[in-house]
């Protein structure tokens, strides 16, 4: 398992004070702030727990029975030098507090504290800690060469993909990228583009399965005014827009047979015409295609042209599914965690061991995209600083069974899928109706009706 995922701490605060009333009132206040709090009444107990558990911040009273605050501080610094310690001091002992600062305390607070001062101080300490972690992470990714453009991976097979990208990028040839949905085919195409001689030009992507045939034709080639009923204006197609750059044909296996023929001609002649046009336009863009389909099988079935396949498949890159490179999961999970906790401005800093274990055994049919969505959702739902298994929208028992009882992948009616999906969301949220209805994008009463209709049970 990835080393960098370990020895990370959960946002917890330790309070060391011999006065019960201080421990309780500070703990109560900080709990309402959402932190998880541990309190102890002596330096000895503090050292004992610190040597076993990890904290993001320690509040340490200067005056303690037994070993005093200053000595406790020195010992804490020996055990965990990076753990921030804030001294709590009474009015009479400011000099000692200054001494503590010299010994490595990050700050001190005079009892009683101003509430705004306390909250500012905690925020300052915790954000600078988060920033340190992020810097450390960036340095590690660069050092370990686990980042290539916007792709992140350390597994052997993905390192192989990075090498292929570097080799093919400077060439002009057509590239065919294969892999399941969510494996990052477009990111690979973009990486090729940004390492090619055409990097200053545009990168234009088009999903070949997104439009019916006639629209597709005009999307790709553009049209002249009056070419068909709705063609009120002349319009440039994606091939023209990609002029000087790269065109990315996603889901190329979905192209209609007629479009396949058109495309083949374009690739052979390096020219194309707008729909309804007679002026040839020369093709000046690199073509990268991608598919999650088995094109060789499609050729055998007669739905994909073999000649087009060979035109596209001059150089091919296959992206392995996430389940075949599980060593990348912790790395990717952490990357998305950083991204989303920054975007949502939430202090979610790590993933619990249990949650990570769950991610490692799950088989991720939706690949990296599914992982990304799962982390985004978990960051949003998560109430503490750590993602726990219940924050993840995955459960291993159910979701890994992608095949029917006879071992084949069954095609199911929409209703059945709706029923199963609602059940899954309900189970994943522990039958939290509000949350489930928000996830499903329907209101609570509709959800109740569907639960009744499908006779779903907790």
């Amino acid at each position, binding site marked *: 398992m990835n080393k960098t995922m370990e020895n990370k701490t959960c946002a917890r605060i330790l309070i060391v004070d011999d006065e019960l*009333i*201080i421990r*309780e*009132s*500070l703990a*109560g*206040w900080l*709990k*309402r*702030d*959402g932190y998880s709090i541990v309190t102890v009444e002596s330096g000895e107990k503090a050292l004992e727990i610190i040597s076993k558990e990890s904290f993001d911040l320690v509040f340490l009273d200067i005056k303690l029975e037994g070993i005093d605050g200053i000595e406790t501080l020195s010992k804490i610094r020996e055990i965990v030098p990076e753990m921030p310690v804030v001294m709590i001091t009474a009015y009479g002992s400011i000099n000692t507090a200054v001494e503590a600062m010299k010994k490595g305390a990050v700050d001190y607070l005079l*009892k*009683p*504290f*101003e*509430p*705004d001062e*306390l*909250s*500012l101080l905690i925020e300052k300490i915790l954000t600078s800690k988060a920033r340190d972690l992020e810097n450390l992470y960036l340095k590690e990714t660069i050092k370990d060469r686990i980042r290539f453009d916007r792709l992140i991976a350390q597994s052997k097979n993905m390192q192989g993909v990075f090498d292929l990208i570097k080799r093919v990028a400077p060439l002009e040839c057509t590239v065919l990228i294969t892999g399941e949905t969510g494996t990052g085919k477009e990111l690979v195409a973009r990486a090729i583009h940004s390492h090619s001689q055409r990097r200053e030009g545009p990168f234009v992507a088009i999903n070949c399965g997104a439009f019916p045939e006639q629209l597709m034709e005009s999307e790709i080639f553009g049209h002249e005014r009056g070419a068909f009923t709705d063609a009120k204006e002349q319009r440039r197609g994606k091939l023209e827009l990609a002029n000087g750059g790269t065109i990315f044909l996603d889901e190329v296996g979905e192209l209609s047979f007629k479009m396949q023929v058109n495309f083949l001609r374009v690739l052979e002649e390096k020219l194309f015409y707008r729909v309804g046009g007679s002026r040839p336009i020369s093709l000046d863009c690199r073509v990268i295609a991608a598919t999650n389909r088995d094109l060789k099988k499609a050729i055998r079935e007669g739905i994909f042209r073999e000649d087009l396949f060979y035109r596209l498949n001059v150089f091919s890159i296959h992206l392995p599914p996430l389940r075949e490179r599980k060593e990348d999961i912790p790395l990717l999970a952490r990357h998305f965690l950083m991204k989303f906790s920054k975007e949502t*401005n*939430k*202090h979610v800093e790590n993933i619990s061991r249990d949650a990570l274990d769950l991610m490692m055994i799950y088989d991720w049919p939706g690949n990296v995209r599914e992982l990304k969505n799962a982390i985004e959702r978990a960051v*949003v*739902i998560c*109430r503490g600083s750590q993602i726990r298994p219940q924050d993840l929208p995955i459960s291993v028992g159910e979701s890994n069974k992608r095949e029917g009882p006879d071992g084949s992948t069954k095609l199911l009616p929409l209703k059945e899928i709706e029923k199963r999906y609602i059940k899954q969301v309900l189970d994943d949220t522990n039958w*939290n*109706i*509000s*949350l489930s209805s*928000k996830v499903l994008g329907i209101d609570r009463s509709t959800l109740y009706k569907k639960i009744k209709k499908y006779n779903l049970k907790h």
Partner: protein
Amino acid sequence: MEKIPSPCIGINPIKLKDSSFLQGLLKEIKNSLGVQTKIITVLNDIEFAYHEGRGQYYSTRILEELNRLTPDKYLRVLAITDKDLFIPILTYVYGEAQLDGRAAIISTNRLMPQNRSPKELMKFSSRIIKEALHELGHTFGLTHCRDKRCIMHYCRTLREVDEKQTKFCFFCETLLMDKLK
């Protein structure tokens, strides 16, 4: 049909010099939480929580008494005082609540308007509503929220209080509604 007793939040004003905001507050709480509100008298005064040395009232002690004395039929109890409140570790608090508990208290002491102009008075009652919903939010297990516009955001200054909305953000609301259902 069987009559289901509707849950109710008891509001306990304690010797307020100015109680002009009370009816508005009851209405806002009812609207925001979807729970009935009612004026009740659990505590007549809070002198038992007075601290000689600090000249303030110890809010945690008051919460214990509120929780102990409020009849079970009340889902929550919110006390309102114009005295200044404190907890031992802090110089003052605007209010306090038992996290995931039953009792909450707010003080109008530091929310007072600068003058009696209608605009300042509006601000004053809106601050009270925000603090009341914030503390009640804590009793439903909500912790502070990073969304600056959310009721559950912890405000360091009155200005921040004035800037936040009288609304729970999407996530706080979701969590709250789950507790309330």
